[in-house]
């Protein structure tokens, strides 16, 4: 499980985000087992769980920071790194793997120059390997944000990434 925080992006939470987080903490504070849902909503607010956010959660719920960190690093859904504008997730579940999703993953990793759990320097793409999104009929599958791409070949990947890159350059102009 990914646990090291290698992130070099400076934390830039806003006042509005902090207010939202306080409301969430208030809502769950007295419930048994509050930590998980609070972290889930905190990640929804900030997009990831930097140490600054973990500190706020620890103080708000009155639990040790070590416990918050322990839970945040235990579950793969929680990320200590920010995600890219386009989040690429390649399914490495068994059904996709036997149909060649390992090669798909490697190809994307090569093309973008990033590894599992990392984000490109320009903040545009991040890459994760996920375990089964349940669309096994379309194997091998990857998702880019909410868009699902199925029955992929290595060549499709080149084309799809080109499309996104073109979109980014268009946006810049």
């Amino acid at each position: 499980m990914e646990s090291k925080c290698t992130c070099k992006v400076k934390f830039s939470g806003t006042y509005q985000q902090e207010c939202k987080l306080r409301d969430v903490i208030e809502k769950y504070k007295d419930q048994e087992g509050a930590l998980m849902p609070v972290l889930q909503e905190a990640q929804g607010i900030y997009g990831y769980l930097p140490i600054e956010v973990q500190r706020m959660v620890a103080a708000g719920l009155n639990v040790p920071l070590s416990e918050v960190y322990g839970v945040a690093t235990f579950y793969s859904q929680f990320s200590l790194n920010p995600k890219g504008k386009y989040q690429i997730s390649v399914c490495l579940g068994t059904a996709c793997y036997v149909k060649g999703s390992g090669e798909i993953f490697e190809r994307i990793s090569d093309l973008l120059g990033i590894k599992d759990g990392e984000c490109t320097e320009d903040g545009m793409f991040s890459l994760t390997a996920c375990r089964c999104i349940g669309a096994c009929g379309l194997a091998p599958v990857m998702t880019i944000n909410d868009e699902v791409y199925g029955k992929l070949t290595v060549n499709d990947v080149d084309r799809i990434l080109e499309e996104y890159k073109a979109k980014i350059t268009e946006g810049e102009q």
Partner: protein
Amino acid sequence: MRNVRELMELRDIAKENLNSAKYQILICGGTGCTSSGSLKLYEALQKEVEKVGKSDEVQIIRTGCFGLCALGPIMIIYPEGSFYSMLDINNIPDIIQKHIVEGTPAKEYLYEGTLDGDKIMAFSDTDFYKKQKRVTLRNCGVIAPDNIEHYIAYDGYMALAKVITEMTPDDVLDILEKSGLRGRGGGGFPTARKWRFSKEVEADQKYICCNADEGDPGAFMDRSILEGDPHSVLEAMAIAGYTVGADQGYIYVRAEYPIAVEHLKIAIEQAREKGLLGKNILGTDFSFDIDLRLGAGAFVCGEETALMRSIEGHRGEPRPRPPFPAIKGLFGKPTTENNVETFANIPQIILNGPEWFSSMGTENSKGTKVFALGGKIAHTGLVEIPMGTSLREVIEEIGGGIPNGKTFKAAQTGGPSGGCIPAELMDIKIDYNNLIEIGSMMGSGGLIVMDEDTCMVDMAKFFLEFTIAESCGKCTPCRIGTKRLYEILEKITSGNGELEDLDRLEELANHIKEISLCGLGQTAPNPVLSTLKYFKDEYIAHIVEKKCPAGVCKALLAYKIDADKCKGCTLCARNCPVGAISGEVKKPHTIDKTKCVKCGACIEKCKFGAISKG
């Protein structure tokens, strides 16, 4: 609703409403079909039906999974039962015009498996469906999961009504005992016994817990039930609550299943509104409510004690048993925990009787089992078969065999905890005991098919990579042992293996099995042991001949261009990402082995089959 009579009245009205339209269009809204665009199709259908002025005659329902995911998006139109597959949004107007306006099914868009010369078969007569027996999936692909009245129309909540008004907890246990139902999450523990443990404990508070943390990658049985028929699980949990004396239930569901989570939320809300959850259900003294808890992506949380730790808000680490959760579980209180599919069987057993249930299946495994067919198989999807069906029937008849003219090599059941079944054991009758006997296990129902292009050593390595990542790290054999197993496999697949490594693998695997704390570690070596047992020759080929017979392990591969077949079209050279291919136009090309990164892009592009690896 205040009593059973009101429930029955609602059922009769709901039934009438469901059958009132001349045409009923069912479109699959499961994850598979949604991923290929069924939501847009649903909207297009509504628009088109309105446009041709047939809204009064047509009822459009977005259902759960039909099962034949490989052919998605799927739609069925009744009364004919016409099965439209691989739908394209551009064809919707044509289909509506022909089928709804002109009254004849649009043959050109029907699934070819339903066409027999001029005759059109109903989908239930196709090879895929006719050998199945849909008990837990009976409503999937039939009702709208976000409408409680559809569920009630098909006798939903009648089992709960019967239990809380006519039966004692002991009556329920007797029925379950007679039915022979065993846990569908993988372990196969008798459900009646589990419930009895909890019932017999004295406590001020007890809990019911539904394990919907379906972590086996490539398995989606529970997801489909939750997406397509969430009320069946709620109803069964309430029955369990009445039987053991609990008034609160939790469903622990993967956050990666957004549609299932959404449908569960809607279902719980609707059940509360109708008075089928909450205080004094149907006017009785029995109260029961259910809350959702979302998992956050940890395979080990499928283990019951880890799951409960996670609900309590901690790291999902398992603890030693005893005490068993039935005695001391969630928040230290007696907790009955069952899997989604186990629960989904229970209302049917109550309504149809234990004899009906035990008439299906084998001596030690009663009823049916849902499998998620995946991998190298024509009909990828979800099937429910009576226990005792042979693997051959599942793969060749229901599953439609192996595509692209390849040969079957093995089927993996039980995911990272299970083992593979080789071709020579294909006639095995699928039940709990038979699968364990041959070194695999039932598991939760993932069934991945592999063909000649799958390397079994690589598969074993793949599963270990998974268990290493998912090991919680609490006990040493699992945390460190699996890593060492992986390293030995890595050594073999990179061409540095020795024959002694095979003995080391086996010895270490058996140690890990014996001394790990929980099910994850105890079963993690199974993929290694079963591939060693049935595919030792592949391991030996990697070690002695330094070859990967399936052509998967990269370090042992070399790409070659056959000079006789190569036409010199230059397509491969243009697509090689590292410029390793050279040659003149219209003359055979060659690959520079020192530059080649073995990505396979050239093989994909070559139109003449001139490039091979091996």
